[in-house]
């Protein structure tokens, strides 16, 4: 993956936005990779969880285009294992929130499969809409 760094991004608003919404210090992460090693959903992701936080540290807004934050189930496996105390699910949530605020709705009530909607537990529908609808 080709990554272009620039000093403006490194000190830009994007990093501050993610840190404000997630209440996490991105630079606390030293890229040990334990989050990605334990994540049960890595096979569904285009970027590994540790790559998301690395790109976010560098202020690269490409993380918003990644599928990874939307494949994160907020199961807190990474959060409970991070030796640096970084709450990565909150960083994922911050990326989702920024994407949603830019108009990128991932879950639309009208597009949920009808038979699933009829049988799925209420908690799944409410939880998914709260996470993924603008």
């Amino acid at each position, binding site marked *: 993956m080709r990554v272009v760094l620039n000093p403006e991004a490194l000190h830009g608003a994007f990093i501050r936005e993610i840190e404000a919404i997630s209440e996490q210090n991105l630079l606390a992460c030293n890229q040990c990779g334990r989050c990605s090693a334990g994540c049960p959903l890595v096979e569904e992701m285009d970027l590994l969880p540790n790559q998301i936080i690395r790109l976010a540290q560098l202020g690269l807004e490409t993380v918003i285009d990644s599928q990874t934050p939307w494949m994160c189930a907020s199961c807190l496996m990474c959060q409970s294992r991070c030796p640096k105390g970084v709450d990565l699910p909150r960083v994922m949530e911050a990326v989702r929130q920024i994407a949603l605020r830019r108009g990128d709705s991932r879950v639309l009530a009208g597009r949920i499969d009808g038979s699933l909607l009829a*049988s*799925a537990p209420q908690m799944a529908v409410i939880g998914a809409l709260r996470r993924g609808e603008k």
Partner: protein
Amino acid sequence: MTLTPRAYSYFPGCTLATTAVDYDASGRAVAAALNLDLHEVPDWNCCGASFPLSAENVMSFIAPARVLIAAQHAGQDLATLCAVCFHVLKRSDSYLRKHPEAADRLNAFVTEGDYAARVKVRHLLGVLRDDVGWEAVRERVVAPLQGLRPAPYYGCLLLRPQAEMELDDPEAPSLLHDLLHALGADPVGFPRQAECCGSTLLVSAPEANQRLSAAVIDSARSAGAAIVITACPLCKFNLERAQEGRPQAEQLPVAYFTQAMAAAFGLPEHAGPAFRREVAA
């Protein structure tokens, strides 16, 4: 031995009131069998179904806070069965205790009363272990689940994050194992016992969700389990859905821990079809 009567507020939540009524009914029945008096929280609403991971918006805590406020009047611990409701209510309570300024702000928006950090949020499993005790559970058993090899499936939100949930060690949980031992069964641990089933990806990414849940089932099957035991209605739904279309021989039934208790307590009407079949076999 006579069981000490104990009283709790009880929050069923949306799913137990609609698509998982068997979890609610079996939970109430086994609680009554252990002399636990569950008083349903009056005029309750949905807990919100997801714990707000961005704390900037106090409004997102209003749903769980209303439930906590409604439970305050009774002055008893608030017992839950749904793992997600437990997670959301427990963590919201923990957040509001640590952030009194957020609680103050929230109180200005809620008309039913003020959040006063007075309710202890519990899961029935914790009540069984810490208040009732495994010995008392064992003594209530009339039909031990002898020879049954259940796979206790903890999932994610029941246990994590440990510091806030205060229930069990997410890396090496024993709560469901201990319960199943008390019921006379021979529980089998398995590698994915505390890994995610996919949760709400059921709605947003159903194929990925199916693969993940199938991996949980395969992990339990490889360990030699005959049935999967869960404390979460979403886990149960996901694990069952992932097996649709599989040959019968490769399927594993899924049941709530309360249904296992009902089977062992001699309450077959609450044991659930999967469990009754398994016990008969």
